């Protein structure tokens, strides 16, 4: 069965420090991968998605970047964190299920607090 791992689960970082959040998927190949940010009252905001190695689409211009160095690895990064980067970051993968519908499966999330 497919599983998705995110780490770290929680992170407290000072303003101006770098960031690296990692997401890996097991049990599937060539998944579509996504980074969302969840903030209270703002729902889930799509940040980046990737349909293959080295292919990144950015939905929102911001202080963050994403990379996909391997088929089942998706990394969210920043060179210098801002206070506004605080939030709950969710990684998700999408594969084609037998039903024909494209369903997102989410990881447990990484809570980032920038001080």
């Amino acid at each position: 069965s497919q599983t998705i791992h995110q780490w770290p689960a929680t992170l407290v970082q000072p303003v101006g420090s770098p960031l690296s959040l990692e997401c890996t998927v097991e049990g599937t190949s060539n998944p579509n991968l996504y980074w969302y940010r969840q903030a209270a009252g703002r729902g889930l905001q799509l940040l980046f998605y990737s349909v293959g190695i080295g292919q990144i689409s950015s939905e929102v211009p911001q202080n963050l970047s994403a990379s996909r160095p391997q088929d089942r690895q998706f990394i969210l990064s920043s060179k210098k964190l801002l206070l506004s980067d605080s939030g709950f970051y969710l990684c998700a993968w999408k594969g084609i299920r037998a039903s024909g519908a494209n369903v997102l499966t989410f990881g447990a999330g990484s809570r980032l607090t920038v001080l």
Partner: protein
Amino acid sequence: AQSVSQHNHHVILSEAASLELGCNYSYGGTVNLFWYVQYPGQHLQLLLKYFSGDPLVKGIKGFEAEFIKSKFSFNLRKPSVQWSDTAEYFCAVSGNSGNTPLVFGKGTRLSVIA
């Protein structure tokens, strides 16, 4: 660009009351529609989905949703809520192509009181 609007930010209901959460979407093509739920302290998980066929779809835990194409709506319903339904509910839309991302609404927080 696709977008999703959820009309209610916070809904408070008593147990056994009926529930309807509104969701309207904007998308210029064939859509896949979803409701996700996030129980306190848990992962986001799929509640139900629509991709084709019968516009009334049934999901887990007694939830259902109806796709009304003419109204661009996909409202979530449950005839009788329970305290355990307290959660945040997200409506989402994507295109029919496997590579189009899901776009979510801002969510509706449901609080069920005894």
